[in-house]
């Protein structure tokens, strides 16, 4: 099916885009379009005005700067997948990118767009939550920085203002002893997550967990943080027993719904397993030694 007709603007600077968002009536922002275009075609979205930001070259970046890993609004999933910087320093991002949809969609879809879409089955929101990430938005009053844990409200609903444009998503650059990982369960390549867990661990000089972050995908009405599990981890030494309890706490914090892919009980159990795996990888990447002991 065709989209309903819409007015179409192609700004080439952020300023031009934000003035358009301010002056136009209820505009919809088009970035990668891999969710929006099907929604337009099914007429689940019927905007009168579409502002296509793909011409704003200054938003096409992925770099470390001022203590952050910054992804401009036009950084595509494939940019993350192909980045040496990501491979070397950002385990959770390197894990996540190749698990998003399929190669064609990763060439077009953007990380920031996926976050803005706020589908509870989207992967990047969980990764941002695990990393204490931030969303940078530009609006009529200038720049606003929104912590990831204050961004997601409901499925497809966020605290982003209607006249605001996400220009960047970012996470702090890694501490000396930091590791992160993302694990996702899906029925087949290209599917959304049945469940997913992102984990970040920062170890202190003594090898204890200084900071823990856990974000969960597809098991609540938004990407969700497993706060109890995080608190349980902090101050402790990484161990299989510790992660087992953290996995249980993450499962308790999750709130999945039964659907054709599995019952709520099953999904909770999967959160437990995925959390343990993600924490295990994160600990190893943070420099903790993983010793395998046969039972």
């Amino acid at each position: 099916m065709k989209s309903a007709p819409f007015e179409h603007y192609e700004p080439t600077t952020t300023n031009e885009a934000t003035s358009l968002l301010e002056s136009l009536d209820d505009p919809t922002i088009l970035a990668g379009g891999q969710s929006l275009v099907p929604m337009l075609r099914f007429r689940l979205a019927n905007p009168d005005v579409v502002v296509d930001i793909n011409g704003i070259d200054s938003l096409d970046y992925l770099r470390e700067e001022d203590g952050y890993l910054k992804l401009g609004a036009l950084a595509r999933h494939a940019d993350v997948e192909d980045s040496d910087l990501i491979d070397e320093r950002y385990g959770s991002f390197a894990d996540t990118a190749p698990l998003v949809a399929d190669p064609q969609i990763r060439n077009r879809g953007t990380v920031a767009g996926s976050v803005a879409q706020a589908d509870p089955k989207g992967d990047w929101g969980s990764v941002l939550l695990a990393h204490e990430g931030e969303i940078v938005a530009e609006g009529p009053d200038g720049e606003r920085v929104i912590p990831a844990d204050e961004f997601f409200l409901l499925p497809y609903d966020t605290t982003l203002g209607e006249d605001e444009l996400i220009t960047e998503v970012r996470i702090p650059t890694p501490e000396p002893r930091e590791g992160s990982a993302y694990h996702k369960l899906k029925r087949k390549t290209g599917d959304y997550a049945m469940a997913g867990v992102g984990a970040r661990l920062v170890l202190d000089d003594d090898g204890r967990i200084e900071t823990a972050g856990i974000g969960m995908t597809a098991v609540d009405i938004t990407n969700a943080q497993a706060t109890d599990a995080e608190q349980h981890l902090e101050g402790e030494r990484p161990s299989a027993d510790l992660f087992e309890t953290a996995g249980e706490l993450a499962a308790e914090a999750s709130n999945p719904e039964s659907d054709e892919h599995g019952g709520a009980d099953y999904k909770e159990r999967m959160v437990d397993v995925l959390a343990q795996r993600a924490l295990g990888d994160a600990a190893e990447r943070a420099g903790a030694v993983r010793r395998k002991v046969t039972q």
Partner: protein
Amino acid sequence: MTDETEITLTVNGTEHTVEVEPRRLLVHAIREDLDLTGTHIGCDTGNCGACTVLKDGEPIKSCLMFATQADGAEILTVEGMEDLPAADDDLHPLQEGFREEHGLQCGYCTPGMLMAGKALLDENPEPEEDEIREAISGNLCRCTGYQNIVRSIEYAADELDARAATDGGAVAAADGERSADAGGEADTFCGLEDCCGGPDASGGDHAGDQFEREYLGGEET
């Protein structure tokens, strides 16, 4: 601005100027404005991949972007395959592979599979089976069970590789998207595993999950 805008698309090497509505999908511009109906539409959701084309060398789903977004871009569709140098005025080795290895039954998904295969071989001339499966993971086939499609792409990789060995890389290097340097280096003779476009080393192996694990924080490996 719902009016038609003029865009320029270079499709299979030929520049076209077309007037499109903002809501016109790239796939409709290709099929209906340019009459290149080799690019198929198999779904409305972006799942099936039958509409895959290469935009500036990268595989994309042409039903998931508007034609205006491809203004100024170079597009390769299945119709352009036989004009590529590697086709040698006949079928492209990928097309030949699909014929030889029975890579299609109804043929509906084939144009998309060919384009996904082309993108893969441009990047990675000697793919492993799992890399081929990953490269076509955005393309659905309801006939073959994929087995023969994988073999077809392997056939093309072997064929291109054999020619590169014979011609010192001339054919491969002339195929457009690959740089002359990459083709000239003749990956066959590199002699190093995982070099020359080989798979990235990946972590996250969970083969050990049947074991109990311990983590000893604070000790350097």
